[in-house]
């Protein structure tokens, strides 16, 4: 923590007796940081519970700063969903065979790389951020036909898709002018249906037939995003808590695979970071909690046994990360999100980890 320096009789001593003056300033600084962080907390609503970004990446990369102005951010998120879970546990091979036997689709893998470019403007009491995601997603499924021998990747009706393109653009604002210390604020924004939602399977038995709505690059819906955050410091550490909800404003959207509406997404992120003033390295740790409601529409398949939609779920990630100042207002950051709890609707694919790296530039 930065101390005030008192110099008497030629002696320099570090004092922390002015903490009452220092703390509000640091609070102010961090609150702006958190406000910006809020802009980067994605909560893309996809059919699979673990798709989409769930991290507050910018919180760490910004550092303590109250400077107004423009900034840019470029990040890459890698999600390889290659683990099957049914509810909150790994299904046995026999259970998967029973799903096949009851005509439930069994997916084998979904890999998503998302590159997000953001341009942000921050004033003294608020700011705005425009986020442009570019997605590359590959997907494989056995459909409802079991592989032979059981458990191998490719069944007789194995199909796959590969698509790249613009995802759903977000425009998000924040306001923190409610109090003088600016330690809390609100988040408000919109997600637009700019991503393609009418792609087909590209190879295999289902080639040229519509891809599942939840696997498209865009959801087809216009969503509002609302949230709030608060932040503070203790010792040489800063903390934040931030919650957002994303809700589709549009009803069912007619997509090639049927009508579809993504379920609401609730995100609660909290974290601590080392807040040593102007330090080059800032380690941080976040807890990311996600609750996704069921998707709805004829494009959403139901569980063969419970008849509940194959979507939604509750997830918790523990996310260690590090940001490094390179100089000239440039920071790079990296996080690894490790699942510590996963409970999804029916049978879904989840990742064993999510990797996120990025670079942030203050102009």
């Amino acid at each position: 923590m930065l101390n005030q320096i008192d110099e008497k009789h030629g002696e320099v001593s570090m004092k922390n007796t002015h903490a009452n003056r220092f703390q509000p300033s640091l609070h102010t600084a961090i609150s702006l940081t958190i406000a910006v962080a809020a802009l980067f907390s994605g909560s893309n609503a996809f059919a699979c519970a673990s798709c989409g970004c769930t991290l507050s990446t910018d919180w760490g990369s910004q550092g303590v700063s109250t400077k107004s102005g423009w900034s840019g951010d470029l990040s890459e998120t890698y999600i390889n969903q290659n683990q099957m879970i049914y509810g909150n546990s790994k299904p046995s091979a026999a259970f998967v065979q029973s799903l096949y036997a009851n005509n439930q689709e069994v997916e084998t893998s979904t890999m998503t790389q998302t590159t997000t470019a953001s341009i942000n403007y921050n004033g003294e009491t608020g700011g705005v951020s425009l986020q442009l995601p570019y997605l590359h997603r590959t997907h494989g499924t056995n459909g409802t036909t079991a592989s032979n021998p059981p458990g191998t990747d490719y069944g007789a009706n194995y199909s796959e898709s590969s698509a790249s393109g613009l995802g759903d653009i977000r425009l998000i604002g924040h306001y923190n002018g409610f109090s003088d210390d600016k330690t809390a604020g609100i988040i408000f924004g919109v997600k637009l249906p700019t991503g393609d939602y009418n792609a087909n399977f590209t190879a295999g038995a289902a080639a040229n037939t519509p891809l599942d709505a939840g696997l498209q690059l865009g959801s087809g819906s216009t969503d509002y995003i609302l949230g709030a955050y608060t932040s503070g410091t203790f010792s040489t550490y800063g903390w934040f808590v931030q919650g957002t909800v994303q809700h589709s404003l549009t009803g069912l959207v007619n997509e090639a695979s049927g009508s579809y509406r993504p379920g609401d997404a609730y995100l609660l992120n909290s974290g601590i970071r080392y807040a040593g003033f102007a330090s080059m390295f800032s380690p941080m740790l976040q807890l990311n909690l996600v609750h996704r409601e069921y998707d709805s529409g004829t494009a959403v398949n139901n569980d063969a046994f419970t008849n509940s939609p194959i979507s939604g779920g509750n997830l918790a990630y523990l996310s260690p990360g590090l940001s490094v100042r390179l100089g000239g207002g440039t920071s790079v950051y990296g996080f690894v999100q490790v699942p510590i709890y996963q409970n999804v609707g029916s049978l879904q694919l989840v990742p064993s980890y999510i990797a996120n790296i990025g670079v942030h530039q203050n102009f």
Partner: protein
Amino acid sequence: MNSAIKIKSEHKGALLIVLLLASFFSSMAFADNWSLKDVAGVKYKLADEKGKWVLVNFWAPWCPTCIAELPDLNAINLQRKDLQVIGVAVLYKSKKEVMDVAQAKSVSYPIVMGDEDIASDFGGMQGMPTSFLYSPTGKLIGHHDGPLTQTEIESALEQKPESAGLFTN
């Protein structure tokens, strides 16, 4: 086919990382290669100040010892044509808060609205105020933790500042 797609994508990601890092490492700034823009929009680069001593003073408007040294820094900046003082405000609530203090103390030298990134470029600091002194050739003499007086700075400049002990590396 699925594996091929995965490998190709991962290589693309790795390439992106390398390009990002290479690009941004090339723009790294250091304590002797800074560029600061003051509240009036005037840019100050160390290279443009050659022939003058340059004193970069980091301060905060909530810090009494920082505020106490402002008149001395202002006086020496006015009296010595061979010295340029640049004040960098950090950890403030608003620009108004900074300018109110600067005006109350009749500060006439450039004031920069700084942030943690700028402070980090100078190598970080342990407290407020902290000042960095550069020679007329643009060499970093050192930094001083704590408030400075006009007399102390004059005395250091009359001696060899490197050996005066006021500014250390």
